């Protein structure tokens, strides 16, 4: 296989969600001395972009998206040591701390956003569900997050999104983070009302939103 064929196949195995083949192809990238960063950009990321688009249009479902992400990460596990060995740097677009707020145990929407952000080049730390506001803030401080993404799927847990923002203000560190929100009952009006930096209706929306916010930071 020549370079172009390997890159095309990398995109294809991500779309197919076949982890083992993704690993084998990533090894071929190393063996053929293909630039691993190019393999990510022109192969793996392209596959994720296509599957993400299909998911957004309702042509693919969560299992396909998660399997694609797993293949992406399987290939990355092979490519990362090579990137380090070549003293190159994997450019991360920013660090996102994501979690569902206190009192809410819903995870699917948050999982999807985390997965799509991760495979779109962001460094993502997923705190899971039912997180007290202060825990979220302490974790954001600890990992030096750029963005805090808060999910709420019930009207009774929406106030917890506001609580995180209010607490950041009280602590005098609101300006350190972009805070974005999402979830079934959440809408742009609520985001404005509580002083969030943005609202994402879907995972793809969230990626565009975070990219836009990070561009402002630069």
């Amino acid at each position, binding site marked *: 296989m020549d370079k172009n064929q390997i890159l095309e196949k990398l995109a294809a195995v991500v779309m197919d969600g076949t982890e083992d083949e993704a690993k084998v192809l990533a090894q071929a990238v190393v063996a053929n001395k293909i630039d691993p960063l190019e393999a990510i950009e022109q192969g793996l990321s392209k596959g994720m972009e296509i599957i993400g688009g299909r998911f957004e249009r309702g042509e693919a*479902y969560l*299992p396909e998206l998660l399997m694609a992400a797993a293949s992406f990460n399987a290939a990355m596990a092979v490519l990362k040591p090579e990137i380090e060995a070549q003293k190159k740097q994997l450019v991360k677009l920013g660090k996102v701390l994501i979690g569902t707020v206190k009192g809410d145990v819903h995870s*699917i929407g948050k999982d999807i956003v985390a997965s799509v952000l991760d495979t779109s080049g962001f460094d993502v730390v997923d705190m899971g569900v039912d997180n007290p506001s202060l825990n979220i803030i302490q974790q954001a401080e600890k990992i030096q997050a750029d963005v805090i993404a808060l999910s709420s799927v019930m*009207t*009774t847990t929406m106030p917890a999104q506001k609580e995180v923002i209010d607490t950041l203000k009280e602590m005098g560190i609101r300006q350190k983070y972009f805070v974005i929100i999402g979830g*079934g009952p959440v809408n742009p009006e609520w985001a404005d009302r509580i002083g969030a930096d943005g609202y994402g209706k879907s995972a793809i929306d969230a990626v565009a939103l975070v990219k836009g916010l990070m561009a402002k930071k630069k």
Partner: protein
Amino acid sequence: MTNFLDICEKAIHGPIMSERDFDMKVFMPKLNELVRKYGIQYDRENPVPCDDQAADNLFQAALEFLASVGIYCQDTNRLIQFTKEEILDGIAKAPGQCHLGEGKDAKVFGMRKPDDQKIPWLHVGSGIVSTTEEMITNKIEAYASIPEVDSISIPALDSIRGIPVAAGSPVELYAAIRSVKIGRDALIRAGRPGLPICNLVATAASAVTTIAASAPQFGLRPTDGWLCGTVAENKLEYGTMNKIAYLLNWGANVGAETAPILGGYCGGPAGTAIVSTAYIMIGILALKGSYQLHFPVHFKYGCSTTRDVLWVVSASCQAASRNVPMPVIWLGYMAGGPNTKMYFYESAAWLLAATASGAPSVQTPHSAKAVKIDGFTPMECQFGVDMAKAAAKCDRQQANHLVKKLLEKYESQIDKAPSGDRYQDCYNVTTGKPSEAYVRLVKEVKEELSGMGTSFA
């Protein structure tokens, strides 16, 4: 039959695994395999299928799915597993009926089959949040004033003394107790104090709130119903199990609450239909429900009226009502809101699909995806009752024909559906009466539906 302590034991001693492994290595691949093995296929041309053999095949797929996958306990990180024999034993011994209500409103909620002309158990109302006690009282009084109503859901309060109700906070407990008292008082005002409330505790998310607000001095009775839900998909946490343990010890009605998500871990319509059917067995086996509240929804659109979700509702309702004796309240989320024609087209389509497919009960379809504060009124309840009665006269083929016509009216609008009015926009809050414009809109829709072949007589 396994009892609830057996379930607790399974949650402690089942195989251990991470939640991610359960999703990725157990749930999704097994579901995919069984979709292929049983040849479950979504038929987009027939949102209300009419094939008893296919319904029974779907039941068999769901049975094998539950026996293979089990339920994941999020607190112990272990699988609650059932053998096929345990599941079949649970189904064989399920009573297929539930006793609800007191006095003259005490009734037995039983089963229906596909094409059954029996009117389903009519459950009206919703837990959609309301902002004032006056509106809640008006709504509940109006629900109970519909003579055919068998049971109700009461709204949740969004704040107490201006303090927002946050899940798990003490304010939630105040709001839950207050909602219960308002609910019972409004039922007394309507002359139906014995009417069962089946979404208790309305404002409660946490176990402590449910248990505390259920103390009898606040007005609840074991003949009401409490919702105890799974987490999507096939997951259970100790908070829910604590509620169940309390209610079973009291002898109160557990309402098993389940909501498969099309487009989520279930994948497409075929997988979602399997999971949806398996959930009715979970309602009996793991949640120990006296009845069940079940509402498949679409992940992307947040509603139950897309063509594929209607098919899931119909197919899994047929599979369950033919094979699993569990009185299920089927509920749908509409994309459109109050005082929009969109809502009523969706509501009619959803009620036709569920009722003709053998739903033992249908609940008032919820407006504006159930997330609009004050976005639910008694008008939707009255229409839901009238439409469910009309739908009971239809067999699956007739329902399929009507649903397809209705889909032509609203399907292309789902992504940009109007969220409609709030209660205070289309009702007089003081008198509790709807605006003339809203009455006129519903009359127009019913005339349209009659013209299409629906019989409201």
